[in-house]
């Protein structure tokens, strides 16, 4: 089913604004247009200062010069790692408008994983924040073909490359619908469609003030919190750390916030605690996503004149698939599919096609074979559609655990750490609820009795639990396990011998 829904969004803003929402095929066209239209307006402010659209254009051209000077050619794959900052945005735009594919690495990756990514994604170069020297040292010394350059390097201005909508633009990390981390390849056209989708459904689109607290290595942060603002001539203030969000808000007075629901809820609680609106008097919109948005949040914010927009999107769809409009929103739904979004519902599961969709997971033939059917991307999300064309998420994909802060944890990925122990035969990581209502991650393991017997271990449960806890200390913070259970029998299995996964939380 293809919904040409652009006309449905026309009524939510004035004609002039709506006609200004133009569709571009590439980041090069978008950036040229924004510089032409908003040249001296502020584009980005961070701890180092304020930069206009013209400044950004100049620095992006100089960074293309730095890439060229280091022998990097258009078509190369270029990793980028560093904290949210003007420099990160400049590096991203420099790489992509030079015709290279950016691989935006999450900043919390350790040095071995950075190296692993450089190999897995066949990176030709790695751009880094100077403070991340240690994180790239292993990749630099081990991967001899990798050109490493600081993002503060600059060269003579080089014009943008002749990219098309089909030119690969970025590889973004995702847990996907099946588990392990992988890279979704998105073209310029897909990224631009995602960017433009962020303009539909509300009145005040252009010339806003956005606050950026989400990581730019997450598609929601990159597309909705950076590229849509730059497309609309808005001004983005980059928070140094999330804890400074509210003190920064008091100074910058943003009109739009892009948040995960847990942070939106925290802002509400803080406002109550301090008896003042922590989001400032100018705040109009909160774009809320990456996890389910509780309808009560929408209602509470409406009372203080702030509209919360729940929507739905995936890394694989360049962020936005559907969104609620400003008026006539349905708080329980994830809104109306955006223009050009092709979709169908097969056995309750949402399947997608369209300009915003990824080309596939990089180097994952098996994952790709499972992810698509007849050219449709199978989201793994169960949905229903109402008579007005609003989508509702009925259930999340069966494996991924979405924590309340919006972070995705892939159980399969965490399990690989525990399964690496010779004393563990199999394991299952799942979300559990403690007696006090707190959601935690738990692991259950089946001991490999033969190995334990060989080692002469008598108290299997105690011995194994200690081993699991030791592994736990090495896990990234969002994967940390709180509850450990050593089983005395195997898991229940499907006919194909896959573990029947627990569903203790919904």
């Amino acid at each position, binding site marked *: 089913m293809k919904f040409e829904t652009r006309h449905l969004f026309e009524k939510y803003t004035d004609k002039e604004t709506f006609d200004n929402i133009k569709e571009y095929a590439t980041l090069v066209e978008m950036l040229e247009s924004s510089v032409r239209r908003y040249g001296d307006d502020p584009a980005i402010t961070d701890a180092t200062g304020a930069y206009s659209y013209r400044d950004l254009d100049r620095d992006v051209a100089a960074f293309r010069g730095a890439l060229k000077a280091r022998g990097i050619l258009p078509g190369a794959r270029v990793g980028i790692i560093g904290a949210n900052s003007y420099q990160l945005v400049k590096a991203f735009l420099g790489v992509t408008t030079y015709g290279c594919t950016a691989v935006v690495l999450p900043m919390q990756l350790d040095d071995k994983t950075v190296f692993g990514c450089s190999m897995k994604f066949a990176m030709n170069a790695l751009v880094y924040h100077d403070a991340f020297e240690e994180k790239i040292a292993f990749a630099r010394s081990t991967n001899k073909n990798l050109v490493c350059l600081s993002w503060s390097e600059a060269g003579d201005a080089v014009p943008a490359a002749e990219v098309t909508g089909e030119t690969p633009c970025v590889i973004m990390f995702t847990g996907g619908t099946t588990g392990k981390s992988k890279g979704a390849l998105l073209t310029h056209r897909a990224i631009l469609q995602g960017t433009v989708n962020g303009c539909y459904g509300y009145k005040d689109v252009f010339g806003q003030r956005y606050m950026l607290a989400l990581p730019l290595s997450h598609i929601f942060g990159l597309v909705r919190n950076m590229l849509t603002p730059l497309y609309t001539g808005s001004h983005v203030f980059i928070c140094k750390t999330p804890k400074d969000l509210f003190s920064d808000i008091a100074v910058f007075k943003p009109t739009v916030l892009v948040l995960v629901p847990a942070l939106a809820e925290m802002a509400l609680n803080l406002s109550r605690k301090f008896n003042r609106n922590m989001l400032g008097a100018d705040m109009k919109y909160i774009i809320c996503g990456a996890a389910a948005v509780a309808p009560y949040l929408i209602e509470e914010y409406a009372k203080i004149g702030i509209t919360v927009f729940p929507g739905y999107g995936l890394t694989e769809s360049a962020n936005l698939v559907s969104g609620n409009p400003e008026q006539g929103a349905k708080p329980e739904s994830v809104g109306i599919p955006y223009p050009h979004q092709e979709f169908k519902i097969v056995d309750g599961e949402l399947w997608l096609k369209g300009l915003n969709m990824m080309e596939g997971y990089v180097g994952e033939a098996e994952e790709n074979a499972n992810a698509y059917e007849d050219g449709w991307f199978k989201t793994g999300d169960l949905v229903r559609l109402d008579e007005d064309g609003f989508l509702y998420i009925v259930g999340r994909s069966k494996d991924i655990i979405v924590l309340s802060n919006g972070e995705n944890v892939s159980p399969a990925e965490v399990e690989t750490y525990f399964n690496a122990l010779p004393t563990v035969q199999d394991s299952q990581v799942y979300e559990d609820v403690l007696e006090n209502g707190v959601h935690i991650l738990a692991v259950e393991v089946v001991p490999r009795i033969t190995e334990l017997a060989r080692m002469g271990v008598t108290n299997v449960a105690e011995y194994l639990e200690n081993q699991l806890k030791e592994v736990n200390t090495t896990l990234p913070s969002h994967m*940390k396990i709180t509850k450990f259970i050593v089983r005395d029998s195997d898991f229940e299995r499907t006919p194909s011998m896959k573990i029947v996964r627990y569903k203790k939380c919904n």
Partner: protein
Amino acid sequence: MQLSRKEILEKLQDIMISINDNDRERIEACTEQTRLVEDLGLTSVGMLYLVIVLEESFRIKFEDVGAATFSTVAKVIDYIEEKIK
């Protein structure tokens, strides 16, 4: 500002109750040895909330913090004591 560890603990308890009022009993019963994640179920967002309110309440500035920064209530009190010296 001169506060005893007991006074800091009481302020901490007030703040944590405001994060999760459903858990009032457990928080009121907590001691310096209580663990923030395992015993009180503090999430990364809960930690952020705690830090923001502590900064405002004690007029101090924390370094960047994550959910793993403080394992127990005692560690938070140590940090605040050091900052308000």
